[in-house]
């Protein structure tokens, strides 16, 4: 019997050789499982319970059919998940409202970013744009 293989004491039930790779797999798996548990526990303890706070930022404006599409990025600065987040985009000219559009994002997890787009008839680049998240639902 070499050092790398061992016959396990089985109380005389008929022995079986076990592959040394098994110890490798077991060690890797244990590290993986404990890593996941450790990370979840860290998240459970270390994360403050701050409410969602969604910041919407314009990404790009492109032609879309007869109108325009403005792509946006919504970042949740809070640690809690926000569900059904309504994002509103408002186009203004000379202090007067020209057009509004809105989109609903299903979920924005805490500290995560989700993307979406708003359609406008007018070119947003020729207007002042105001983007904001209107509200959310707890999941």
């Amino acid at each position, binding site marked *: 019997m070499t050092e790398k293989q061992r016959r396990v*004491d089985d109380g005389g039930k008929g022995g079986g*050789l076990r592959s040394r790779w098994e110890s490798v*797999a077991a060690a890797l798996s244990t590290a993986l499982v404990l890593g996941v*548990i450790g990370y979840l*526990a860290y998240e*459970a303890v270390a994360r403050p319970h701050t409410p969602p706070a969604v910041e919407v930022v314009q990404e790009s404006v492109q032609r879309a059919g007869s109108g325009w599409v403005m792509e946006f990025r919504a970042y949740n600065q809070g640690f809690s998940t926000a569900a059904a987040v309504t994002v509103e985009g408002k186009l203004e000219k000379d202090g007067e409202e020209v057009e509004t559009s809105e989109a609903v994002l299903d979920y924005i*997890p805490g500290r995560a970013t989700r993307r979406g787009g708003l359609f406008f008839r007018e070119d947003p680049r020729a207007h002042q744009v105001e983007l904001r998240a209107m509200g959310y639902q707890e999941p």
Partner: protein
Amino acid sequence: MRATSRAADRAFFTGLARAFGGAILFALPLLMTMEMWWLGFYLSRTHLVVFTVLMIPLLVALDYYSGFEETRNWREDLMDGMIAYGVGLAASFFILALFGVIDASQTPREIVGKVAIQSVPASFGAVLANSQLAGDAESDDGQKRRKEQAGYGGQILFMVAGAVFLAFNVAPTEEMILISFVMTRWHALLLLVASLLVMHGFVYGAGFRGTPRAPEGTSQLSLFLRYTVVGYAVALLVSAYVLWTFGRFESTPFLACLETTLVLAFPASLGAAAARLIL
């Protein structure tokens, strides 16, 4: 010695491949359920970590009876249980990445959460791959003997595992709560009775392969009380625990919680009964 070592290696990797196959097969319905992805990020981390830790003893005990490799002692059961868990995590990660449900733009919290929750059904699949998917040439006689000799504790363990698996498969969906809204009190009561009858009939009446043999002279009433009623209690507790884990009890009155538990206990009790036949 070289030759036997190589044979042992080959047997191990075959077992590992089978574990991956089992993990994907068992977890696929949930890997393709969007509620599970959402639960991955909004579920309470405390609930999730408790569930993850509790899976370890359950997997090790399951491995003792039907693991993906023949085991000789508790240390090997622990090793195999951990490998099954690791396979479950890895398989969930790969499939979710393949679907594009997880990607590099997401936060670690989101990715780890999604993978951790999917690893529950996947690691069940990994551990059961042997008993369900192994070819005849490789079936372990020792394991079979162990299964047949499984005492009362072993039977309870099978029922817990079956209940967890089935409950986990249906609990993520909104329908659990919706059904309890639709049902009247009478429906709930009938559902309880139906669960018990179906459970008992499933194991003792329907004559499936693997029906446990009761010792001569055991009355139906005794079997009913010792296995079916106890199994239903197990299903109720497991259902309540799974619903609590998924946050379904938060700011919900007791009666509504109880009704949802009764609804979930129906599939859970069938899972418990089926596990006694299959495992």
